[in-house]
């Protein structure tokens, strides 16, 4: 239970002739021939992506199709390489979700800067931004590598929502006890 000196046995005469190693090497190679391969033929075959994977950051909608982001800009603040740019905007007063008040007017994530750290998802108070399963991005120009708002929603899609925070808030407001 402590420090163990490693023993170094001198090689035997047979081992010093290189022959056992050559035979051993051939055996390793031949045994390998009969086994299935460990590699994937990417991109035809793709690895299984576990849940919780940190792929490309995306914006999501709630099951009613409302964009969840309220442009609080917390993700923009926390992003270590400053990949996110948000221009806050307002929701028109006649919209059904007018009580949410804010939504981003523009939301850009520069995928040349993003390091897929997941901090944006972690800090978002609205569960609006998620790093999902997509992992390969490519483009011919720098501009193409910036994901704008439309593209972010297209990539993100809709995720289930357990809280329906704003629906509850609206219902509470209607009953006159907003807070």
């Amino acid at each position, binding site marked *: 239970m402590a420090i163990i*000196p490693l023993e170094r046995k001198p090689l035997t005469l047979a*081992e010093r*002739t290189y022959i056992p190693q050559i035979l051993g090497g051939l055996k390793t190679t031949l045994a390998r021939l009969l086994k299935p391969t460990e590699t994937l033929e990417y991109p035809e075959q793709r690895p299984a992506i576990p849940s919780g994977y940190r792929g490309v950051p995306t914006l999501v909608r709630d099951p009613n199709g409302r964009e969840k982001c309220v442009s609080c800009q917390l993700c923009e603040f926390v992003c*270590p390489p400053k990949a996110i740019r948000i221009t806050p905007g307002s929701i028109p007063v006649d919209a059904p979700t007018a009580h949410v008040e804010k939504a981003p007017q523009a939301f850009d994530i520069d995928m040349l800067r993003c390091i897929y*750290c997941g901090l944006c998802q972690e800090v978002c108070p609205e569960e609006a931004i998620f790093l999902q399963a997509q992992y390969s991005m490519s483009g011919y120009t720098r501009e193409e590598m910036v994901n704008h708002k439309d593209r972010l929603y297209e990539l993100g899609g809709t995720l289930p929502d357990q*809280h329906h925070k704003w629906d509850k808030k609206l219902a509470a407001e209607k009953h006159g006890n907003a807070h």
Partner: protein
Amino acid sequence: MATDFAFPDSAAKTAQARPDIASQPTTEFETEKMSLSMGPSHPSTHGVLRLQLELDGEIVTKCDPVVGYLHRGDEKIAENMTYNQFVPYTDRLDYIAPLANNMAYAIAVEKLAKLEVPARCQAIRVLTAEMARVSSHLLGLGAFGIDTGAWTVFMYTFTEREKLYKLFEELTGARFTTSYSRIGGLQRDVPEGWTGRVNEFCDQFLPILEKILAMLTRNKIFTDRTVGIGVISKEDAVAYGLTGPNLRGSGIGVDLRKDKPYSGYEQYEFDVPVGTKGDSYDRYLVRGEEMRQSVRIIKQVIAKFPGGPWYATDAKKIFAPPKDKILTSMEELIQNFMLVTEGPQMPAGEVYFEAENPKGILGFYVVSKGGGVPWRLKIRSPSFCNLSILPKLCAGCLVSDVVAILGSLDFVMGECDR
């Protein structure tokens, strides 16, 4: 001025380092020294290390490591962001074992805050750090194999490492850049059934590890290249500040997991392997045995995996509240905003914490003037210190020995240059 770095008498040095070739006459013809740049992109310099060699024929008379090609100013970057924002940057120090760096950094900052994390968090950190050690040593051995001409070993170690990476991916969401620790806790708890899969990995890994080691340990070609090459004496190892397997290879049993246990390492039983001669072969042996010991630790952690919270629940000013609370309660929402924008609140003061990383001792020195951003953060990186012995080690060797010595030191430039 006579220093260790000036070698006027290459013949004497060669006689010391390679007695077998020293007797061969090299001075019959009028010769000139040749200078050779090995790296920054050379397969055996494992990244962007450049060695400025001075050669007398095949014999290296002088070796000047040139570092800094991967310098990103991490220490300065740290001064401009909150403690949690810096976690992704620690991934990129020793990028072969990011989980171990994440842990060392988090513990350093927690030490500043005098914060104890719960047992479950500690256990998960130990578990991931040991898995990182196995994965780091697998790469180290595989690359060492390639450096000395054994490709097969690399294929086997990489196959195993890939299995570990699948587990990391499931745990943290990323294979490489794990960013798993947070100050006061972790990014998330372990997924359902994950520890069982780690256990399965360990069970199938042990026989394969023996197979991998059997390919090298008694391999005449490998021993020819490594035995007696790059001998580091105990005194030199200490004088140059070597740590980790390179220090233990020279016969000094310093392992912080035993000597200054952190994160609950004192609960686990394991041995510290040390070499006897301090040559490249000993350093290889130490890494091989350390993997066996790491698997031992992993199994013990899983056997008594503690329940309970996985983050410091009482540290409201350090660790963010759970997500469903943020979504439903005003108080937690404000707390989340404060934490993100101001950072985890630390007292003023300074701490130094060092952890036994796969490559050696990784230390973080944090100076805080209070608030959520470090005033100064200094990183003591093991690879940088380990490389400092290269001028001494390489003088008098053959060029091909330099390759074997580099492989045996197992450094990573992300951490060296940081």
